[in-house]
């Protein structure tokens, strides 16, 4: 399962069938390899626990060291129901445990997800410790304290015509294998859905994911809850498997073990945790038993782990995949499309119908589509933008120029609401958007292409555009986890249209890393374009381009300007004068002058600003 590909090209259900086949074959094959049934059962439980964690970490990029809290919660709730509360049905108790864990996960996520990256990891560590403590002491009546809850029964089904009694060892295996299979099937659907696609976008570039219109926090919270649900179910199964729910399920070490197993097996593969658990448990038994290493088995494991993290980033599964790929290349060398030879843009793309821009809510005549009044931004003692009044009419192409340090990028950031102004207001299409979020603003129809490429680096060109288009078609948040990506209406159309507009149709399946610089810039624009914005901001679209690329890009910009409004910042004044109808000049955070390109060219103040007041005689 390749986490990097959104569009699953393998025949339908191949992975599911293979998994089912392996699970069915296991009890017949594994004993010959010396595997004890209880070990296999344990591996399944860890594998299930890890599926949810892999969705959280491998697919969404959130490294949580606190999964043990949810594992233990689900397990304790289920075990408590089955032992002290005398609840009769095992499966129902497991489901209740899972739901309880998901609910707790939601609450925990609200706290933990306020921060990202490393802060988030630290908070999850703290949460794991707190839960362990709470389980141990204040709630020990429910959890049995350090003794745990013994006497958890195994499932029994009376189907009328047959009685199924799963007790222990190989007898319990079918039940656990079935649970694991269900877990995998659901997980595969999730990662193949639009929801799953957005998760991956968040992993690669959360900033851009938000900027193209996705409610990043909502998705992260949903992923967290999913991971919690898997953890809770696995915890319940642990209790059933051992006939005993141990307190050490809550220990930080359990989280640590899960993280290590997933990294060893391969993150972002869904099966990584299963592989990692097999390696871990096998090594634990082998090193202690056969090699008689006693206590130092953990040292060996630690070293193996560090080496894997350093050299095999995608773990064992990733390593196998790379090996297979390498062998295939050796066998049949494929001509690689030369990355340097960027596909030229076909200039006559005017035949491609422009993407319909968002319907403008206010009449075309008279009212500007965007008006900023008194916009100011202060960073401590530094005044980046001071009292800017700025208005753009619908359909206009406006250029913004100014010497370095004029505050152009800051101005753009305020317009897209990436940064909140210190004072002033912004009105877009008649509504006040001051202080809103970049996601909301994008959904309203205002997007930006960035000066420094903000792409989803692990995805292909087509996948990048898909992410942006998904926000347009589904709104900023939707829990469509069980839907297939291929079933989103209008998605393919939108993606193809956008690609055609920027001339990247031929390169659609190339990963971003293999693109030429010019192509990346075009993709950058495509991302901003894919949501059919009414107002498109472009921050130095021509930066770093060769003369030929510039000409091509100017042609591109002209073609995409049809039916929408654009504001462009750039330093290439020749190109900008060609493109724009009006130019605004910023200097030192203020508007210096505004006018047509002709007026600006001959304006003395502008020349002084750029040249520092040299010879007036040189004015053209």
């Amino acid at each position, binding site marked *: 399962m390749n986490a990097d590909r959104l569009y699953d090209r393998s025949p339908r259900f191949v992975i599911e069938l293979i998994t089912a086949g392996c699970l069915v074959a296991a009890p017949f094959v594994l004993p010959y390899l010396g595997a004890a049934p209880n070990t296999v059962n344990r591996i399944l439980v860890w594998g299930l626990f890890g599926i949810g964690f892999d969705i959280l970490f491998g697919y969404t990029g959130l490294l949580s060291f606190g999964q043990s809290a949810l594992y233990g919660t689900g397990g304790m709730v289920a075990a408590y129901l089955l032992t002290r509360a005398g609840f009769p049905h095992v499966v129902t108790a497991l489901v209740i445990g899972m739901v309880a864990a998901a609910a707790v996960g939601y609450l925990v996520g609200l706290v933990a997800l306020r921060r990202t990256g490393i802060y988030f990891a630290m908070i999850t560590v703290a949460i794991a410790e707190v839960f362990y403590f709470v389980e141990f002491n204040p709630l020990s009546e429910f959890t049995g*304290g350090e*003794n745990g809850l013994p006497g958890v029964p195994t499932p029994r089904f009376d189907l009328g015509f047959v009685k199924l009694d799963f007790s222990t060892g190989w007898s319990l295996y079918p039940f656990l294998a079935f649970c694991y299979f269900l877990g995998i099937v659901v997980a595969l659907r999730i990662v193949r859905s639009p929801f799953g696609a957005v998760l991956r976008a968040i992993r690669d570039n959360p900033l851009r994911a938000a900027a193209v219109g996705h409610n990043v926090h909502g998705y992260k919270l949903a992923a967290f809850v999913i991971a919690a649900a898997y953890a809770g179910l696995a915890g319940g199964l642990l209790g059933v498997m051992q006939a005993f729910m141990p307190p050490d399920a809550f220990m930080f070490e359990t989280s640590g073990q899960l993280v290590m197993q997933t990294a060893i097996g391969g993150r972002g593969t869904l099966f990584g945790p299963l592989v990692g658990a097999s390696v871990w448990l096998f090594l634990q038994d082998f090193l202690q038993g056969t090699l008689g290493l006693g206590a130092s088995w953990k040292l060996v494991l630690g070293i193996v782990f560090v080496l894997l993290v350093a050299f095999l980033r995608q773990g064992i599964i990733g390593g196998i995949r790379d090996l297979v790929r390498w062998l295939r290349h050796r066998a049949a060398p494929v001509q690689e499309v030369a990355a340097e030879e960027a596909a030229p843009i076909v200039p006559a793309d005017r035949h491609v119908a422009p993407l319909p821009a968002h319907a403008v809510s206010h009449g075309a005549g008279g009212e500007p589509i965007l008006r900023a009044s008194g916009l100011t931004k202060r960073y401590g003692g530094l005044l980046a933008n001071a009292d800017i009044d700025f208005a753009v009419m619908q359909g206009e192409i406006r250029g913004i120029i100014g010497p370095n340090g004029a505050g152009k990028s800051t101005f753009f950031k305020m317009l897209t609401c990436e940064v909140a102004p210190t004072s002033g207001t912004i009105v877009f299409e008649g509504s006040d958007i001051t202080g809103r979020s970049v996601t909301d603003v994008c959904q309203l129809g205002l997007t930006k292409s960035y000066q420094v490429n903000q792409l989803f680096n692990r995805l292909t060109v087509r996948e990048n555009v898909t992410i942006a288009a998904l926000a347009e078609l589904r709104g900023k948040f939707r829990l469509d986890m069980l839907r297939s990506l291929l079933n989103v209406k209008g998605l393919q159309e939108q993606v193809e249209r956008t690609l055609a507009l920027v001339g990247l149709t031929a390169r659609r399946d190339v990963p971003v890393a293999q693109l030429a610089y010019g192509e990346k810039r075009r993709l950058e624009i495509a991302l901003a374009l894919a949501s059919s914005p009414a107002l498109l901001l472009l921050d130095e679209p021509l930066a770093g381009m060769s003369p030929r690329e510039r000409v091509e890009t100017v042609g591109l910009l002209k073609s995409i300007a049809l039916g929408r409004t654009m504001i462009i910042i750039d330093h290439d004044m020749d190109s900008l004068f060609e493109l724009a109808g009006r130019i605004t000049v910023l200097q030192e955070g203020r508007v210096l002058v505004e006018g047509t390109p002709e007026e600006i060219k001959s304006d003395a103040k502008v020349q002084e600003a750029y040249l520092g007041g040299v010879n007036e005689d040189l004015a053209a």
Partner: protein
Amino acid sequence: MSNSKHSPTRRDFMRLGLGAAGGLAASGGFIPRVFAADQPPIGTFPAGVSGSSVFIGIAVPRTGTYAVQGEDELKGWQLAVEHLNSGHPLMKQISPKTKKGVLGKEVKYGVADSAAKPNDAVQAEQRFITENKAVLMTGSTSSAVAVALNKLAQREKVLYVTGISGSNDTTGKDCVRYGFRQNFYGQTAAAAIGPVIVKAYGKNKKVAYLTPDYTYGHTVTKSCQDYLATAGWTTVTNQVAPLGAPDYSSYLLNVANSGADVLINVNWGHDAVLSTQQAQRFGILDKMKLVIPYQIPFLAPEVGNNLTAGVYAATDFWWTLEDKFPLAKMFVDEFRKKFGYNPEWGANNAYMSFAMWADAVENAGTFYPPDVIKSFEAGRKLQSTVGEVYIRKEDHQCVRPVIIVQGKKQAEMKNKEDFWNVLEIVPGEGLMQKPDAFGCKLGDYT
């Protein structure tokens, strides 16, 4: 897991014979069997005894907070297995029917590191059961592990004798038909040491407790409080510290300011060492008397600085008992010969547990678990390293004395292991609670 359909072999007749002989020889409540068919497969029987050896699964902490005590226990088991296989005279004193091995079979064992975690212990023992067909499980230093293994034993129908386990619950509300405990525990410790310290320090004293925050700690503290209340002792503070706390300063300051006369430290393992050392540094041991109601093996040497001088403690065994009991002398001598130091009570507990199991099996004449259990419950008196003992059938707890010791001053120590002076050997009968007082309900035999 085993094939019960086999034509009668020499083995079956031997079993028959032994069964009959055993039934005739043993005393009280023992149902004589005639047919092998009365012993259907259960647990690892008869698969685990079909060869020339039987297997014992040992899950003991070799890393973590209790590693030191774990290693000592392990040596006790190892010595016991060696003696069983060779038919050592010491073993024969405790289990008179032992000749060589157990019922003629060699005893083998496997060791796994439980790190005092119930989950790891259960995992390891499950492997021993499925792969090695273990007929006996043992191991614990933490009562949490003992309780977990109790439950596992009952579910898998494989016998379990505890290692060190001090909580009342192990033969209390968490007792099982398939589990047995040799050593002393919270209730008996409190009941034994209570009168001693009341006699030493007088009535109506103020007590401060340092309690580790888990059920072992809480039950021992409670047992102490209940007994001492009858002599008018009041609790001025009970400082509950989490397991593995590195720094007891906050708790000790509270204790120092509490005005207590006596400090009862219920902490165990490394926590006991640390809290005692820090108590001394806060000047508490100069102001109050320290009492250790449940002694920790190697506390005295680890704590250092002769901090245990004058301290009263209750323990399961101390090597100077060799002067009082001939079997103790044999045990201590053999242990020291093999391992180079005097055994602590964990090792003694381990040795005795195995010996009692061997005795039960020999008397049952079979490894069939329900029969072995009944043999344990028969109430036979055994000679042990601390005199005569027996297993109480209502809760599978061994009725045995508690040893009250007092720490020696540096000057009085005759050698570098002479930490404790044995003051009293309090008989067990009077110390134990009524069999059903802690809610013990033994389960089924099968």
